[in-house]
């Protein structure tokens, strides 16, 4: 079991009333409300949290990025990854991930990640994402080609990491005259790639085809099981059997030394008017062409206020009930996590510990209790349930490097 700590790095000091007044806290919510004095303090507090996570024995630090919104202060995940590469010794630096379609030059991304891998002495896990709809608009990147750019940039990055240069790349969205980076990853054949996601079936299928672990982001137990069904079916078609080493799960868990305080702090997971990614116009979160055509009808009806958000929108209480938010002392948190592990059998688990206005002191308490009480118990449960991480299972980095592929089972007559 690989156990990680995550925070969205919330810019929690923005004036919430201004967000409500404007009616949105994403993309177009003015950065006049971003205070760099607070920003400076918060960045350094997050860094303190990460260093402490390593100190208390957490295996990995999960990083991500978003743009134009207070819910996440990381505008470039590689910045924190580079800092952690130099300042930590043992933790895996798990990027979930770099939004590939936003890259105008994927080779530069490959170089940055190779540098992080070398500086960290091989501790990089290089996850990739499509980026949210709003990120495409914030970056001016065409949402209609999001998936094409994702797949093409991935292929270019992997080639830049694994093929001897110089070579030329002529793709549909990327053309690179000379690919010959003088920075290549320390890990061979290349750093592990994990793919996080929430809803898109296409991404689950793609991850399974690559044999990359898929990290379900705070989905319900029932939805997580559906994701694994899709993944497992594609895996069999591709000639391998998926197991816990292919499965990751991120869940909002706040741990404290008393139950009431834990629940009070956990309410901060819904700190931005009940939407953890902030309020946004639906056409910002799902620009035309960004989503699968099969979801088109549902999204346009949602955008016109004629149906509920296809991505789901549930109350704090309901999320507690569904175990999408867990809060309490280690004694009450561990049995709930056990249930998730038993039901969904992941080999990678990330706890999203703190959000919103949770104080630095409470955040540090949460991290300490996760590292010294919750995770040791989880490790025992993982042994009992035989939940191995990709590292423990020595899983191949990708399907291309698999030596155990079977011919797909013949279709039933």
């Amino acid at each position, binding site marked *: 079991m690989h156990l990680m700590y995550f925070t969205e790095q919330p810019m929690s000091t923005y004036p919430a009333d201004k967000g409500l007044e404007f009616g949105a806290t994403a*993309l*177009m919510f003015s950065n006049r409300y971003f205070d760099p004095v607070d920003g400076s303090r918060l960045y350094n507090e997050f860094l303190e949290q990460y260093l402490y996570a390593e100190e208390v024995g957490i295996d990995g630090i999960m990083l991500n990025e978003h743009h134009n919104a207070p819910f996440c202060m990381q505008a470039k995940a590689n910045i924190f990854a580079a800092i952690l590469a130099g300042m930590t010794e043992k933790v895996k630096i798990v990027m979930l991930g770099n939004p590939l379609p936003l890259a105008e030059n994927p080779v530069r991304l490959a170089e940055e990640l190779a540098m992080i891998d070398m500086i960290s002495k091989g501790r990089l896990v290089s996850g990739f994402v499509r980026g949210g709809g709003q990120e495409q*608009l914030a970056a*001016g990147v*065409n*949402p*209609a*080609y999001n998936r094409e750019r994702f797949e093409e940039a991935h292929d270019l990055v992997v080639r830049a990491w694994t093929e001897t240069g110089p070579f030329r790349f002529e793709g549909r969205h990327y053309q690179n005259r000379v690919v010959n980076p003088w920075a290549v990853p320390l890990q061979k054949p290349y750093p592990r790639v994990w793919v996080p996601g929430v809803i898109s079936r296409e991404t689950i299928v793609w991850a399974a085809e690559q044999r990359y672990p898929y990290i379900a982001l705070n989905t319900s137990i029932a939805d997580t099981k559906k994701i694994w069904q899709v993944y497992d079916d594609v895996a069999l078609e591709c000639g391998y059997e998926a197991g816990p080493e292919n499965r990751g799960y991120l869940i909002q868990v706040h741990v404290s030394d008393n139950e009431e305080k834990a629940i009070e702090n956990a309410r901060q997971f819904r700190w931005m008017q009940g939407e953890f990614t902030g309020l946004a*116009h*639906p*056409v*910002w979160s799902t*620009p*035309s*062409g960004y989503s699968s055509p099969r979801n*088109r*009808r549902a*999204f*346009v*009806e949602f*955008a*016109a206020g*004629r149906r509920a958000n296809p991505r789901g929108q549930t109350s704090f209480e309901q999320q507690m009930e569904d175990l999408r938010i867990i809060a309490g002392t280690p004694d009450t948190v561990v049995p709930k996590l056990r249930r998730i592990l038993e039901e969904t059998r992941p080999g990678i688990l990330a706890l999203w510990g703190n959000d919103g206005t949770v104080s630095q002191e409470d955040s540090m308490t949460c991290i300490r209790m996760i590292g010294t009480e919750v995770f040791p118990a989880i490790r025992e449960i993982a042994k009992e349930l035989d939940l191995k991480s990709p590292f423990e299972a020595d899983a191949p980095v990708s399907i291309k490097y698999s030596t155990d592929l079977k011919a797909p089972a013949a279709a039933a007559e």
Partner: protein
Amino acid sequence: MAGGCDGYWQETEVAGVPVRYCRCGTGSPVLILHHDIGCPDRAAFAEALSGSHDVLMPVHPGFGLGSERAEWMRSVRDLAVLYRGLLAKLGIGRASLVGLGFGGWVAAEMASMAPADVDRLVLVGAMGLQPREGFILDQALVGYIDYAEAFFKDPAAFDAVYGREPTNDQLEAWDICREMCFRIAWKPYMYSQTLAPLLGSVTAPALVVHGAEDEVVPADCAAQYAATLPNSRLETVADCGHAVALERPEALARLVLDFIGE
């Protein structure tokens, strides 16, 4: 064509893509190119022209439900070339071009690439040039209904075309149109950086029309077209938004018929 295009639809393949078009009337050929929000069935403007002209109104491929898109298409100029192919396939050597909004950009591209093949050029609220002041309204940031409503000065005119509560089919069609706009006109958004110099080659007489209350395309675009097209005239339609053909069909038909001939 009374009441709409029912019964006048045909389809042919151009550049590997099926192109649906409404064709009706007799006389000199007129190609009408529709807005970026699709081709409404209610076509009073086209109907008025069809009394004295061979009116051809295609649906831009990929703009609307059941309209197959050209996966390869990457620019508005590609669409203009495709329509050159459509005219050739239908044996129309020379036609008048009437472009509405986004369709005005397509028409301007067509005129610039084959000046000798244009009888008269009419650009109505045409996109395609970068305004020196203001911006072309960015549909990526507004809802489907909000964007279409912005095409009209009078909300009642919007209601008359789309209904007070547009159907879910209409919403879906607008999303499909929007995706196609992104595919071919994302950056720079809704204008070309190379069109203006090429407009100098256009020899056909041109009529540039602008709704006085257009909130989608700044009036400066019309001023630039009028200044750049060598043989042009600018008309402003008072009390009218971007969608002149939908909001003031009779007034526009009068202007156009006076210009291209009854």
